[in-house]
């Protein structure tokens, strides 16, 4: 039928948002909309990926992302296997090649990979015929997190275009920040970052991103704050003097938010350090969309799995005809 399909340029894999067009990103968000309803049904399962085998290959510890992917996969009817490989022995390149070959030999259809090395997802995608979804690779990208942030912002404001979004915290080590910056800019938002100089990349202004060194200034400017988790090991590495000091200078608190000229929406990718980067009365307050983010995470991941399972874009015409 004549339903207009967005021009999607998703290939075999989802590695990052850097090389996707705004139209493709919007197409993924639009596809996520109908998937929200499935998680509200009595029987939360549709048979669209029935018979597909998906491996969740997590080389780094993760609870939220892994569970979210697993729910998304199961609600689409896929069979899933979780492989949790942690520790230093498996983060070597050779091991990843071997893992890839083994997966290929088991005839799986899709892999979700989380890995401590930037580029690991692309590395795997280049070596196996299965669809590969990046569940976070090193300090590179975490595309599905950014997509769920975008969907949550769109739910809150009805649009992304023209929004002022500030990412607060450890931007330099954050794949969430990178994916968010790409996604937000492609959809027409203005992006800023805020944090101690040691945690802001030196060249970030070249990306068209504004830099705030005072969180109060960021709050004056923003429509929404995306507050990153402060990874506690950063303190030991000397990036920040202490957690209490960080909270005093950069913590998003209720009293700081009350100075804002407008109602600010607060996002956090989790897990939160309450009392460090975010105070409890903000996290649990009316401006927080942290739990809707989690709900949207499942819908966005369902959309990505669904779209990637469709295969080659050159067969788009066939798909249209078959829709009658």
């Amino acid at each position, binding site marked *: 039928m004549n339903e207009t399909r967005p021009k999607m340029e998703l290939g075999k894999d989802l590695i990052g948002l850097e090389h996707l067009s705004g139209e493709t990103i919007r197409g993924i968000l639009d596809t996520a909309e109908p998937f929200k309803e499935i998680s509200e049904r009595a029987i939360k399962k*549709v*048979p669209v990926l029935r018979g597909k085998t998906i491996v969740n290959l997590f080389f780094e510890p993760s609870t939220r992302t892994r569970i979210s992917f697993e729910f998304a996969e199961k609600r689409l009817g896929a069979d899933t296997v979780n492989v949790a490989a942690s520790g230093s022995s498996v983060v070597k390149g050779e091991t990843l090649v071997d893992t890839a070959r083994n997966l290929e030999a088991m005839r799986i259809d899709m892999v979700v990979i989380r890995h401590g090395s930037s580029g690991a997802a692309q590395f795997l995608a280049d070596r196996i015929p299965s669809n590969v979804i990046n569940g976070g690779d090193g300090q590179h990208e975490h595309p599905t997190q950014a997509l769920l942030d975008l969907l949550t912002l769109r739910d809150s404001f009805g649009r992304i275009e023209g929004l002022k979004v500030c990412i607060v915290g450890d931007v330099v080590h954050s794949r969430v920040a990178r994916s968010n910056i790409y996604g937000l800019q492609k959809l027409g938002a203005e992006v800023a970052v805020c944090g101690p100089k040691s945690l802001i990349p030196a060249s970030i202004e070249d990306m068209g991103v504004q830099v705030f060194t005072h969180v109060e200034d960021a709050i004056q400017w923003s429509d929404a704050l995306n507050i990153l988790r402060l990874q506690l090991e950063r303190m030991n590495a000397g990036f920040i003097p202490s957690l209490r000091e960080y909270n005093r200078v950069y913590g998003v608190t209720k009293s700081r938010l009350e100075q804002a000229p407008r109602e600010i929406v607060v996002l956090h990718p989790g897990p939160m350090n309450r009392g460090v980067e975010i105070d409890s009365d903000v996290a649990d307050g009316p401006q927080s969309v942290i739990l809707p983010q989690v709900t949207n995470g499942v819908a966005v991941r369902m959309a990505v799995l*669904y779209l990637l399972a469709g295969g080659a*874009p050159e067969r788009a015409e066939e798909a249209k005809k078959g829709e009658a």
Partner: protein
Amino acid sequence: MVREDTQLLLDAGGVEEVLERLARDVAEQGDDGLLLVGIRRRGVQLAARLASILKESHGIDAPTGSLDITLYRDDLHQIGPMPVIGVTEIPGDITGSRVVIVDDVLFTGRTIRAALQELADFGRPRKIELCVLVDRGGRELPIQADYVGLNVAAGERDLVEVRVPELDDGLSVTLVSATEAQ
């Protein structure tokens, strides 16, 4: 060379007449737990029209819902890129209700098979019936309609087009037949 012949089967008045008859037939079976569920996309508009006729002419207040069957299709693995999905909205709990599925054209029956499977994921209705504006024959599954507006003997390559004002130009049913010209 393929030539296309377009034949108007029902104009707007004709469609309205047929819908009134269909509404009367649905109403004759009572209104106990009645729920109309339109299949996306044109079944949704037809279900809404049936509901308004039921209310005006028969005093029956039947809730309506919509069903997008894309995720239940049996050919998704063959067609390449995934089609756009519409939102499914089923009001309340359908367990114990009498669901009338409404669609524009009944052809292979595969859409209805998918709809039955999807409805089962929402609950266990007392009864499910099928109401279609046009039955064009050509079934590939043992499925038939309880209420049929118009029977058309269409060839496999012919196209039966239903237009509704919300999505197209006007309200009509046309048969576009493809014939091999000499």
